C-alpha cells in the first residue's frame, strides 16, 4: 500500500466514514474542502504519528493544510 493510500485511509477514519477516498486528492484542503475541524485534525496528527512512526511539530501541523502537504511531510520525514 502506498503512503497516499495509507493517508487516505486515515482521513476516512478521522471523518468517521463521511469522506470517501475519491475526494481525498492532493489538493484537497483539510478544513475548507474536507470539513475537518481542529479536533479532527488533531486526531489525524495522532494517527499519522502512530502509523508512520514520526513526530509532527505544532509548526508543521499549522503549515500543512492539504492532503498533498501531509503526504509531502510524511514522505520527507520518513526518508530523512
Amino acid at each position: 500500500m502506498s503512503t497516499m493510500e495509507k493517508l487516505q485511509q486515515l482521513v476516512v477514519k478521522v471523518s468517521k466514514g463521511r469522506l470517501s477516498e475519491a475526494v481525498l486528492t492532493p489538493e484537497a484542503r483539510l478544513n475548507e474542502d474536507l470539513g475537518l475541524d481542529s479536533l479532527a485534525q488533531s486526531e489525524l496528527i495522532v494517527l499519522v504519528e502512530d502509523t508512520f512512526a514520526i513526530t509532527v511539530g505544532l509548526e508543521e501541523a499549522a503549515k500543512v493544510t492539504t492532503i498533498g502537504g501531509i503526504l509531502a511531510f510524511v514522505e520527507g520525514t520518513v526518508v530523512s
Partner: protein
Amino acid sequence: MPETGYTIQPVDASNAAEVATVFRSVYGDGFPVPYVYHAALVMEEIRAGRLAASLAFDSKGNAIGYVSFFKCAPNPNLWEGGNLVVVPGGGKDELGWGLMQHYLQPGNLPGLQSDGIIGEAVCHHYFTQVGAVKLGFQECGLALDLLDGASFSEHRPETERVACVVQLYEQSDPQGPCYLPEQYRAFLHGIYERLRPRILLPGTSPLPRHGETVATDHWFEEAGTWRFSVSAIGEDWGMFLDRILVKSRERKAVCLQLIVSTALPCISEAVAQLRQRGFFIGGLYPRWFGNDAVMLQQLFGKEPDYEGIKLYTGVARKMLHDIRSDREAVQRKGEQE
C-alpha cells in the same frame, strides 16, 4: 511561525465585552463560568489577580478566540490554563494552538513569579492533549470521570463521563522535600523523572496523635465532582474521611478527589486509610500547595468507560493502566474485608 492572520491581545476594559460574544458563538448562554458573559465581572477577576485572559482578533477586528489562565489551587503562583474557545469558522486552524502557546511565552502571565501552569485536558478528543504535550507540558495524573459528558454542548463525548489528563508546565524550581507514600513510590517516581529535580523522601512517619485535619474544598455541582485539598492531617483523619464519604453520598457526588500535600511525612499512613475506604491513585498534582500533592480519587457512579478514554501518549496510557489496576486492587481488598 507561519503568518497567522490573527492577533492576540490581553482582555481589558475596552474589549472585555467581546468575551461574551466568543462564548455565545459556541455555548450560547450555557457556559458554566458565569463571569464570561459580563464584561464588568471579567474585569473584576482580572483586577483581583485571579484571571489572566486574552482575545484573538481577525484582520477585520472580529473576536475569534479566547484563552485564559486562572487560579485554581491553594498555591497562588500556580495557574490553571483553560476555557479556550475558538469561534466556529472564525479562525485559522492553528488558532487554538496559537492561543495555548500564547501564555507560555515569558511575560504573558501577570505577577512576578509563576511556579507553573497546570491543565486538565479532556480525554474525549486529542486536541488539548496533543497541543499541551507538544508545547512541553508533562503528564502527571489522570482524573477519571471528572466531568459530565452532557455538559459539553459542542463536541459532545460518546461517554457519559469525561476523564482528564493532569498536565504541568513547570516554570520554577521546587523547594523543600516531598514525602512520598510507599504504596505509590514507583508510580510517582515515573512522573518525577519528567519534572524538575526534587528531594524525594519516604513518607513513613506515623499519623499525628493530636491536631485537626486542615482542608479546603470545592464542589463542582454541574460535574458532580467534589475536590478536597488537604494541607494538614490531624488525629481526626479517619473520622474526617468517614464524614466526607457520607456527605458525598448525600449530595450524590459522582467523583471525589483528595489532593494530599507531600509536605506531610505521614503520607503513607494517610494513604493507607484512604485505600481502606476505597480511594485509588489519580496521580501527582505538582506545586499544588507550593510543594507537590498526591491525588487519590473515588467514584460513586458506574464503572468508568475505560475504552472511551482517548489518550495521546504512551505515558498517559501506562498511567491509565496503573490507575485502573490500583482501583481494581482496592475494590478486591474491599470485597475481601
